């Protein structure tokens, strides 16, 4: 694996890989922010501890991926301290704050599943072994995040008045925005960095979701102006108020 010092020297495949890693890492950064904000709503001490651990895990994964972006000449300082709301590339799924505990559970399930599915495409990458090992470690740790949300979904569903299935249906459409339209050119896959094309990963995601929720046949996100570099439709960036909540604020308190 070589370190590229100038973005001008990046090949097209490297640019696409860098963009995708930004999207995955930013998804984890914003998801960590979600856990941070919801933390005090934990339903028991063990629940509080679990949310705290998942928050810590997501921050750690995001920072490890940001560190890996150094391969493309991007510094940790640049990634963490110089970007504004318009430059954060997290999925649209996480733009809308949780509307209830049930909506929170449905959303973290979709987000954890989507991120893990996308990362699973790098687990056996021969083109970037460091990334493959990192993806493997993150996936092993994220397994417990999924157990947490699946456990809560099962518990909530015992109540006939539960809205968790409706919440999941709404969030699933938002989650699919991450994959855009199937059958578009996928240079990260064709260049060998990822072992599965986006269209297969989208199917893998739907199959995994289908083990917990009913997935309607032919479900699709709203594809209008999807851009691969930000993995979403419409204008880049996240809502300003979300950014203000999740951004790192006190530089002097930051860990090196």
């Amino acid at each position, binding site marked *: 694996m070589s370190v590229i010092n100038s973005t001008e020297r990046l090949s097209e495949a490297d640019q696409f890989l860098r963009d995708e890693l930004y999207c995955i890492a930013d998804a984890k950064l914003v998801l960590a922010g979600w856990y941070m904000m919801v933390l005090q709503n934990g*339903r028991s001490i063990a629940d509080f501890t679990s949310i705290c651990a998942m928050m810590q895990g997501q921050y750690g994964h995001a920072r490890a991926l940001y560190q890996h972006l150094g391969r493309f000449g991007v510094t940790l300082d640049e990634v963490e301290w110089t970007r504004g709301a318009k430059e954060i590339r997290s999925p649209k799924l996480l733009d809308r704050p949780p509307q209830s505990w049930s909506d929170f559970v449905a959303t973290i399930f979709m987000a954890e599943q989507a991120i893990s599915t996308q990362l699973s495409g790098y687990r056996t990458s021969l083109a970037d072994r460091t990334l493959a090992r990192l993806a493997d470690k993150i996936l092993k740790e994220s397994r417990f995040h999924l157990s947490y949300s699946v*456990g809560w979904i*099962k*518990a909530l569903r*015992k*109540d006939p008045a539960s809205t968790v299935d409706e919440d999941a249906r709404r969030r699933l459409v938002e989650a699919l925005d991450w994959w855009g339209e199937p059958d578009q050119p996928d240079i990260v896959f064709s260049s060998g960095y990822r072992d599965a094309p986006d269209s297969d990963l989208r199917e893998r995601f739907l199959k995994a979701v289908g083990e917990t929720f009913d997935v309607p046949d032919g479900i699709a996100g709203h594809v209008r102006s999807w851009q691969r570099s930000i993995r979403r439709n419409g204008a880049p960036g996240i809502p300003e108020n979300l950014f203000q909540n999740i951004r790192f604020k006190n530089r002097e308190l930051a860990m090196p």
Partner: protein
Amino acid sequence: MKKIIDRQLELGGDKPEFYEVFARRDSAEPLTHIGSVEAPNPELAEARAWFVYDHHTWREMCIVPLSAIVTITERGSNSKVKVV
């Protein structure tokens, strides 16, 4: 405002159960009882056990529903399983 937890709604109407947690740090160590967690199902119990008892990098961890344990020496006592 005081937070009110509707256990019926938020725990899905399930009665939470205790799960006993066993773990070992390496293959030379015996599987040891390290504590317990309360959860309405095994998935949530697995996550809570992993996150609550994360003071070591466990080589092996498993959980057992308390209801599955048949006591012998502790029959009639308040705790079925004691942490060593």
